[in-house]
């Protein structure tokens, strides 16, 4: 049963390949159109992904600095230390005494030139929150700022928050763009399949008269849609790859200016699979819609 099913699909597949081979230019153009369409969301996704990764390299994670009042005593510091240890929202923290901060500052030549003679620095705790979501970090910061002897809290990753929001926006943009262009893809492939059905109208009519099931008639067109979509996905991958290659030359020049080694990376294995599989799936869907509509039309025509 399964063998039979596989074999009939295989035969339909071979048949479709043979047919596609008859019009190589047209099919290549078709794949290029779909590829260009799909390369837009794929490219945007890639850009966002690269930024996210670059941001991840730099920020590591958000940090909250607690600066204590200058008159905080050792025992107050100890009490605070205890309370921080018990706080479940904190992953880890370290204490930077005013002396060590002062020494650190003096080692740094540019600051040493300011001519400060007395240590103006307070004791400080540097805290890494467990939950790095911006909202959770905000909450923790507020909570910590209300502790005794805490004069000032500083979230050093305000910009991370903005970046995070931006990345969220770009994710939404990718989703919206993908839906719109996915719809376009279904329409493009559906239309192509409809034209193919029209040219094979006689074959379909005769096949129906001599006992072909709708499934038999549908099968080669679904394969064609799947193949169109897959080829388009492949093209999109190629387009994105070429664009990336061209970009990377400049990106590396730029990165060198900042004496960093940075280059844009290509779609990962999973994203590539999603691109190819998604394109193939949309092609299949477009073909299915087209074939069902055409079969209904043929049926209506036959009844007349």
């Amino acid at each position, binding site marked *: 049963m399964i063998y039979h099913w596989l*074999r009939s699909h295989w*035969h339909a597949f071979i048949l479709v390949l043979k047919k596609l081979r008859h019009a190589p230019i047209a099919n290549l153009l078709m794949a290029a159109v779909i590829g260009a369409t799909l390369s837009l969301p794929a490219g945007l996704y890639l850009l966002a992904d690269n930024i996210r990764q670059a941001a991840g390299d730099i920020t590591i994670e958000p940090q909250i600095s607690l600066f204590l009042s200058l008159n905080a005593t050792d025992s107050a510091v100890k009490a605070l230390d205890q309370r921080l240890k018990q706080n479940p929202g904190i992953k880890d923290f370290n204490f930077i005494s005013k002396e060590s901060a002062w020494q650190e500052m003096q080692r740094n030549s540019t600051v040493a030139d300011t001519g400060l003679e007395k240590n103006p620095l307070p004791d400080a705790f540097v805290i890494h929150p467990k939950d790095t979501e911006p909202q959770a970090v905000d909450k923790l910061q507020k909570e910590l700022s209300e502790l005794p002897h805490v004069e000032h809290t500083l979230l050093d990753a305000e910009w991370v928050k903005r970046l995070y929001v931006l990345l969220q926006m770009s994710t939404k943009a990718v989703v919206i763009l993908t839906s719109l262009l996915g719809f376009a893809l279904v329409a493009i492939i559906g239309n192509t399949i409809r034209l193919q059905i029209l040219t094979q109208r*006689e074959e379909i009519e*005769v*096949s129906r*008269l*001599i*006992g*072909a099931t709708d499934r038999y008639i549908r099968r080669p067109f679904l394969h064609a849609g799947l193949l169109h979509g897959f080829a388009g996905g492949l093209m999109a991958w190629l387009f994105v790859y070429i664009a990336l290659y061209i970009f990377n030359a400049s990106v590396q020049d730029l990165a060198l200016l900042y004496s960093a080694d940075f280059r844009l990376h290509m779609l990962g294995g999973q994203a590539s699979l999603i691109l190819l599989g998604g394109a193939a799936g949309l092609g299949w869907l477009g073909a299915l819609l087209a074939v069902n509509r055409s079969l209904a039309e043929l049926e209506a025509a036959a009844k*007349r």
Partner: protein
Amino acid sequence: MIKFDGVTKRYPGGFEALKSVSFEIAQGELAFITGHSGAGKSTLLKLAAAIERPTTGSVIINGQNVGKMRQSGLPYVRRNFGLIFQDHKLLYDRNVFDNVALPLSILGITGREAGKRIRAALDKVGLLPREKAAPITLSGGEQQRLAIARAIVSRPSILLADEPTGNLDENYARDIIELFQSFHQVGVTVIIATHDARGIAQRGDQILSLVHGVLS
């Protein structure tokens, strides 16, 4: 095998192609449906081959009531038939061999087994030397025989032919009828619609003559 019971077929617009037609064709019979053009022969064949359904009455094929069947079941009923259409309905985008391959492909038969059966069918109608030819290059009689080869390749139990000798000269027509008779002799039920059965039908053959959609 095929049983019509009070079958009426009314087309949209109100035209009644068949009016309360009842008959039965047993297995292995050779039957002729005669009548002038427009008498309802083609409609009767379409109903008998489960291509159309009756408006009222019942059409029973191998014990199955076609009118009550689900649409999705009809293709399987149609596979009992080898159909020879009045206009042949050959596919002109492929050669003789591939035309005959179509019914087998529908049944899921491909490859070597299909090749054997296709050549056997072509041999039976005398078209084996032309297997690579394009149908458009065949003469009228050859096209008719190609249509017959396509109808018999799936080894159906019933052959239905609509005016198979319609526009052939006498000698060709006789050849074709002899071909059908040879199928009949090996046990196939054969139903032929023709405007004139005189000189073709032999004793014992059933003749159903239609006049304006009514059996007389």
